[in-house]
């Protein structure tokens, strides 16, 4: 087995609120990303998917305590100083964020923001960096790249802004690109365009791609491997085809059912998962038990461990769908 590009092992992130109890945003998460692979992490808001990725790069706000291991090409990232982490940010691992309207500096020209990414890790004169910025915009299929460089973010459409974010992320040819809800704020057509662009770039540049989303349909369409998170823990992980074909964890099944489909009768109520996700306190027993159709007493008594019950397919459930049969 080849060496993983990014190896996360028992990652935990806790936030200490003001005098309140601790919030366990990420509660022991382990997964691996391989070069050239597309991994999707799917979950509701509050599942910890975004926090786990930001923790790797040290981009969490004040009051966050991170434990565990996150190795990038063998280098341990947890515990590095900010200066040391900065060498990896943008250069090895780059991120694209959710809302490009807010994720770009409104008072800085777009070209300058891309050039800044270039000069963060490479020795380049202003002129060279500007030229590279234009090249990067061409790479992401931005029409009239020279003109766009002189414009401000508010002058661009949502899709164009996201292309700029991608251009920024690619500035130093990272080996891993993390797209954190990169298409959530866009309309459906633009979503598809951006996703296609990401895949095309991945193939062209040989990057690994991590897609973070609440949209399981998106994950299924574009990812090789899917990880499902709930309440700070991984509850199921499998290659995409296997996950949809042989769902095990009831939460995943509910998510699959919740994907809007054309075949459904026109006015049938949309299937929802009732209840609220937990608020970060560590419950006894399975975190999903309060909302699970298949919950039994043993579910509430003890949390099921995440285990590879079948080769390549992990889940954490005492009563999986189909009884765990292959």
């Amino acid at each position, binding site marked *: 087995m080849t060496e993983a590009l990014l190896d996360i092992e028992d990652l935990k992130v806790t936030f200490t609120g003001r005098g309140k109890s601790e919030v366990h945003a990420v509660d022991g998460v382990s997964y691996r990303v391989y070069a050239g692979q597309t991994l999707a992490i799917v979950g509701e808001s509050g599942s910890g998917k975004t926090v786990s990725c*930001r923790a790797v*790069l040290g*981009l969490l*706000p*004040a009051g966050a305590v991170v434990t565990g291991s996150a190795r990038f090409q063998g280098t341990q990232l947890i515990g590095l100083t*900010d200066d040391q982490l*900065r*060498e*990896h*940010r*943008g*250069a090895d691992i*780059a*991120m694209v*964020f959710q*809302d490009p309207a*807010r*994720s*770009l*500096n*409104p*008072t*800085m020209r777009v070209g300058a923001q891309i050039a*800044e*990414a270039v000069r*963060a*890790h490479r020795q380049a004169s202003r002129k060279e960096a*500007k030229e590279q910025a234009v090249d990067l915009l061409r790479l992401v299929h931005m029409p*009239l790249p*020279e*003109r766009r*460089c*002189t414009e*401000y973010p*508010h*002058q661009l459409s949502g899709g164009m802004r996201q292309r700029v*974010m991608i251009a*920024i992320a690619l*500035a*130093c040819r990272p080996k891993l690109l993390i797209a954190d809800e990169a298409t959530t704020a866009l309309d459906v057509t633009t979503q598809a365009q951006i996703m296609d662009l990401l895949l095309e770039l991945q193939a062209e540049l040989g990057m690994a791609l991590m897609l973070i989303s609440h949209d399981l349909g998106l994950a299924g369409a574009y990812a090789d491997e899917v990880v499902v998170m709930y309440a700070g823990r991984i509850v199921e992980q499998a290659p995409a085809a296997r996950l949809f074909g042989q769902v095990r964890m009831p939460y995943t099944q509910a998510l699959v059912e919740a994907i809007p489909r054309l075949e459904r009768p026109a006015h049938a109520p949309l299937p929802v998962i009732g209840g609220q996700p937990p608020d970060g306190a560590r419950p006894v027993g399975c975190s999903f038990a309060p909302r699970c159709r298949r919950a039994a007493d043993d579910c509430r008594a003890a949390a099921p461990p995440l285990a590879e019950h079948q080769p390549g397919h992990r889940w954490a459930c005492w009563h999986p769908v189909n009884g765990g049969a292959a």
Partner: protein
Amino acid sequence: MAVAEELRPGAHTPLTRRVARSPGARLAGRRLLAAIPVLWGVTLLTYVVMNLLPGDAAQELLGANATPAEVHQLEIQLHLNEPFWVRYGQWLGGLFHGDLGTSLASGQNVTAILGQRLPVTGELLVYAFVASIALAVGLAVLAARRPNGLADRVSMVVSMIGLSVAPYVLALILIYIFAVRLQLFPAIGYTSLTENPGANLRSLTLPAAAIAFPLFSVYTRLLRADIVEQMQREDYIVTARAKGVRPWRVLLRHALPNSLFGLITLVGLNLGTLVGAVAIIEPIFSLPGVGAILIQSINNHDVPVVEGIVVVFAVVVVLANLLADLLYAVLDPRIRYERSAA
């Protein structure tokens, strides 16, 4: 960027025409027009207030021992017996010709008086403003770099002191420490810029410090809070950090320009209050500025002088707020482009 230049609209019209048509010029024009009624209102109100006060200039000039006949004589001489509207109208008329009237107390031309004294006050205020803003930006940036760190806590304490100390108290304490004890600066007196720049700055340092310290304290607090808010709450800061940008550059190039709006607004608002500060500080240091004669002129019912000073300050305030608006547009391109569309 030759390609981009050509593509930009209006790239071939001459520069002057572009400036005149620019959104900035139109904005300036609109604002100036809107300011005229405000200025007029202020002058009118001043006139009204001054005239509502019991007594008048003649009374003040001649003192308590004058007979009513003598007072009446002087009143006729000074045109004080004419009705209120006539006098105001005359003054307003004179204003349009650039003539601010004559001082009732000294007989001097008001424009001449202002001409002599305004440069002193002006220099003092510029000194105070530049110092307070520069120091505030410096300290706020240091404090925001590490919230709750050493620089931050020091800035909180220092600014709390500055907010709580009265300017006149500060002035006297500064005089005591730096002029009497340490003999570094003169306690009173003024040397003009043309005479001796070094002595000029020295004579203005203590008064400028007395005015600047409270301002600096307010500005530091506000700016530090705004910068910290940008750094902690805004997404583009996360993007900048994720790019691998150095922390100082994130602070100075990204957070700071987006944090200045509150400060600019506040500076604009503050200008109006400076009349009061100057009126108290200048006499303490015996500076020959407009503040020094303001109180006296009010006491003397010297209406033209008071009006003259009020008009000048009102114009300065209007211009300063206009400048603030223009600064917003410079800093935030969204405002710039929004206005051009309007």
